[in-house]
């Protein structure tokens, strides 16, 4: 399996008297640029440290106008990481394609990162979160068709000789001729994050891409989601490779279970009670009715509605404890979910730098070797990109 360190780059400085949403309408006066300078640099250091500790990859993602994750441009972060790391895969999970107009911008910037890093990019593509459709004014009822068309344009820009003409419904460019071209041929591995929408699962299966389950639900919701993904692959006539599945989960390790909870719990609650509110808004038409009906089953288990620590542990919303406990729980769940990519959130909410670094160290030294031995295999059986 492959082990990744995922960073959301959360804003840790929401004042205690602010109890509104962290999204769309969270007043930007609450952002302290001085704190911004500190945390951007600190968070980048934490990702670079994961490279030094031997992780397989690091992950960044894209969100706008919110305190949950202050990476409106993950490509800026990825370009820094391309220079300042030497081994890790750099997974941008992902670019919200409908927010780029024209989306050839994504083909260009991803190719730049792939060139600078010497072919270490994982190209994530995402529909974008519900709040982003409010923040950008893009019509959510056209989210899926824009995403699909933008995806086709980007893949074509990477794989077909330019210049060529692209005439779609949303994007019309008479001269597509992307410079630079990516190092990885025919194109970088593609990851698609999703929260269980059937259209996304079917899209990923059809293209033989990898699906990253968006977290913050009860483990049974993930189990259902990954089963749906495997079914979607079967319908396409093949068996899903575990490396086509990724589980994103908060992880915290300390010397003992008690100490881990003591050091971690308040930072976890800051995350779920302060940064998640507002994330789950689903604008009209953004999710199809059949997917809404399917996803409705899990909605009551969304982490924002958690009330006590026992629920957190029981539902595996975060894997917290001594190295032994964490290894045991991760092993159980990786088996149960059948995933080949583990995307750990080693920093969450207000978790400070020293705890984050020690967490990464304990994972790399006490947990990762056993996981790797238990779940060997880090290459896709069939290389991505070899499919239509």
């Amino acid at each position, binding site marked *: 399996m492959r082990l990744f360190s995922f960073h959301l780059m959360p804003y840790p400085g929401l004042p205690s008297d602010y109890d509104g949403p962290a999204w769309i309408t969270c007043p930007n006066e609450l952002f302290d640029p001085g704190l911004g300078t500190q945390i951007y640099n600190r968070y980048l250091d934490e990702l670079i440290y994961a490279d030094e500790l031997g992780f397989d990859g690091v992950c960044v993602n894209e969100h706008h106008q919110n305190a949950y994750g202050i990476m409106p441009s993950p490509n800026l972060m990825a370009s820094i990481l391309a220079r300042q790391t030497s081994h890790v895969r750099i997974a941008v999970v992902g670019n919200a394609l409908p927010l780029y107009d024209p989306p050839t911008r994504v083909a260009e910037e991803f190719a730049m990162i792939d060139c600078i890093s010497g072919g270490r990019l994982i190209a994530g593509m995402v529909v974008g979160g519900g709040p982003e459709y409010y923040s950008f*004014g893009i*019509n959510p*009822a*056209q989210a899926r068709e824009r995403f699909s068309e933008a995806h086709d344009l980007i893949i074509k820009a990477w794989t077909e000789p330019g210049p060529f003409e692209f005439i779609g419904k949303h994007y019309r460019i008479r001269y597509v001729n992307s410079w630079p071209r990516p190092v990885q041929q025919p194109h970088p591995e593609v990851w698609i994050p999703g929260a269980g929408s059937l259209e996304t699962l079917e899209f990923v299966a059809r293209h033989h891409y990898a699906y990253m389950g968006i977290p913050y639900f009860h483990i049974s919701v993930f189990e259902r989601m990954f089963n749906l993904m495997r079914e979607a692959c079967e319908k396409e006539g093949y068996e899903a490779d575990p490396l086509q599945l990724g589980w994103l989960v908060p992880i915290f390790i300390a010397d003992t279970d008690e100490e881990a909870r003591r050091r971690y719990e308040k930072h976890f609650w800051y995350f779920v009670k302060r940064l998640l509110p507002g994330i789950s808004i689903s604008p009209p038409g953004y999710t199809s*009715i059949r997917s809404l009906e399917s996803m*409705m089953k899990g909605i*009551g288990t969304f982490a924002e*509605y958690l009330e006590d620590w026992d629920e957190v542990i029981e539902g595996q919303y975060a894997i917290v404890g001594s190295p032994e406990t964490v290894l045991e729980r991760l092993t159980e769940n990786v088996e149960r979910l059948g995933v080949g990519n583990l995307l750990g959130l080693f920093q969450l909410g207000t978790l400070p730098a020293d705890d984050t670094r020690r967490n990464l160290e304990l994972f790399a030294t006490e947990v990762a070797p056993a996981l790797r031995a238990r779940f060997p295999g880090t290459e896709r059986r069939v290389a991505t990109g070899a499919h239509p």
Partner: protein
Amino acid sequence: MSAIGSSTELVTERFPTAVGAVQLTRGGDPSRIPVVYLHSSGGETGSNEVAEYLGHLAADHAVYAPMLPGFAGSEGLDQIDDIEDAVYHTLDVFDRLGLGANNPPHVAGMSLGGWLAAELAWRHPERVRSLTLINAVGLYVPGSPMSELFGRKFDELAAEVFADQTHPVAAGMNLLGSLGPKDIAAVPFEMVRPFLESMAAAAKLGWNPYFHNPKMPRRLGRVTAPTLVIVGRKDGLVPNAVGEEYARLIAGARLEYVDEGSHMLTLEHPQVVTRLMNDHFGG
């Protein structure tokens, strides 16, 4: 002529159009002068909610209330991307109902339907016998922004669009709004499906620009139909300023206020709206 207050049987059917089968409610003597009612983003002709209002109209007219694609199972939403598509789809419905330029209907629309009616009236004046705009959207008035329709809690929205929170539809919205996330998961999906479908269809037309056509102010001078603008003084969703601006920009338009009315006027005050419309048709 029947007295106001009586109502006539309505029939709801599937009706073929160029974009697929849509839901159509019709009533009254087909040989009478036709009235077309265009619904709001709430998709209210899909149920019995405006049956009383349509029934009153049907006493003296041939009444037609088509549901736009995406609402109440009407097909063809994939072929509707903006209000212009909705206008040409509506003209197609008129054609198929025999409502050509030789037999133009009175056209009334509430909220989203009012916007559609106004667009129809300036593009094809010959197809509209008279125009009635009921809390219509479609115009942006600087300083008087429309409230948020999308992503609201049911109870907050009910407070903005109903004057009487005990109205059955308002009461249903308040009940849904009172449920926590875990209870929502237990609500039968069929209860919320019509609302989700209506909002998805409305978003295609009104997400951005937000329920208005920026070119509308310089087009409304083309409207020739006698126009009645009805505004609910207590409308919490669409500012009265929008109706007032319609009345200012359409030559000869008459502006009427319903003092006790909020946004969903045809649901809450069917008699008042029908009386104003019959006066308008007669004059």
